[in-house]
């Protein structure tokens, strides 16, 4: 009989384990940055294998420090993203009236393009024509590649210990 006593315990553990793993695997997140780089390894040194757009949904499969291994349900390449590029909230692009209603009663969704947005910036500009955005736009065009960063580290004899 002792042989059979352990079966319910095993079943319970397997159920709990299975549920927990399932919950982690099914955690959906949204890209909360304009361009979200997906990398081959959990580090900014990892090769960029894909780029996702604001509001894209991903499933988190594994967590390693601040890096998440993500899977795109609609195909595309799997890989690692830094947690700061991801939001636990669902980001609704072009929200309709029902999304607005839902957002008012839930903190699980975010409405893209609502609140302070391009339209508000344009209105601000028309009321404050003396404020010049030329150099802010220029700043945004100053981009740095990962290769430039690597060369900078090497030339400066820096030895990064890595972030989290």
């Amino acid at each position: 009989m002792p042989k059979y006593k352990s079966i319910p315990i095993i079943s319970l553990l397997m159920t709990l384990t299975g549920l927990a793993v399932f919950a982690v695997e099914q955690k959906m997140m949204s890209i909360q940055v304009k361009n979200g780089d997906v990398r081959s390894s959990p580090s900014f040194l990892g090769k960029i294998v894909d780029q996702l757009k604001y509001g894209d949904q991903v499933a988190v499969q594994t967590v390693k420090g601040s890096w998440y291994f993500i899977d795109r349900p609609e195909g595309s390449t799997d890989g690692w993203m830094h947690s700061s590029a991801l939001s636990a909230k669902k980001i609704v692009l072009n929200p309709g009236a029902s999304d607005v209603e839902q957002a008012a009663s839930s903190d699980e969704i975010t409405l893209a393009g609502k609140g302070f947005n391009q339209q508000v910036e344009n209105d601000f500009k028309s009321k404050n024509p003396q404020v010049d955005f030329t150099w802010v736009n220029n700043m945004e065009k100053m981009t740095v590649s990962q290769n430039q960063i690597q060369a900078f580290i090497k030339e400066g004899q820096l030895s990064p210990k890595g972030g989290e």
Partner: protein
Amino acid sequence: MDRSSRRQFLSLACKWGLLSLGAAPVLSSLMSGCKTLDELAKSGPSFQVGDVVVDTKAIAKETQVVAKSFEDITPEQEYYIGRTVGAMILQKYPPYNNPAADGYVNVMGQMLAQASDCPETYGGYHFLIQDSDEINAFAAPGGFIFLTRGMLRCCPQEDAVAAVLAHEIGHVQYKHGLRAIKQSRVTSALTSLAIKGTKKYGHEDLAKLTEAFEGSISDITKTLIVNGYSRSFENQADLAAITILQRTGYNPNGLVMMLDQMKIQLKPGRQDFAATHPSPDSRLAEIQKYVAKYPDVKSPQARQERFKASLGRI
């Protein structure tokens, strides 16, 4: 299954069960992206700067009052706030417009930002040198970072420049700019989220929203240029800088080197760092215990040469 293998199976099942169950809360605690100090304080009484443990409860006290409100501002909205705050800062201090020098601080800044706790923002980090003798540096929300030629003249070596940039990245990481916005404006902006309509705001709604936007920009700009952040926010940014410097392989004493120089060059009474920041001496006293174990800054020759080539005539 014999008794020993059954025991082995049960033991493994227990371990995996506990591990998997434990993963869920850990995962959810990490889901919000960049951690604010409040979140760090909630997750535990302390966090680490380099090898030193910092008590977060004490420094988080004053931030908790507005935490609920500003945290509801999305990274997308933070980006638009940051763009306009940046344009306002550029009204006071125009750009230096030196592509080589700007390129140098941008590569360095990106590398430092990647080692911060908030490496990704909606529009990314961008750095610009401003043509002013005044000693100043600003971080607009979302990662628009500015520093004057006067500030760069307080930096005898690259490690000191890295300290200035890392300090400003610290302000972005902790969303200090957004915390300067008055509660009433945040409420007004967040109320607008409930306005129905698909794409564009109507005239009246837009007018209200722009008013809240203008007020928010004014709150942040006034804090950055006139009043300065609280002493505790500056301390948070200094500690973030030490962590970033340590992670990237710079000497955290770069911050000490910069503050020592600033002490010599600051002129009391001017509307620059002297008016908006705690004195270099008090900042030095606050960071002493975190940097004491590091040697004096001595950049390798190649690092010093590129620093001189890029900023030698600043």
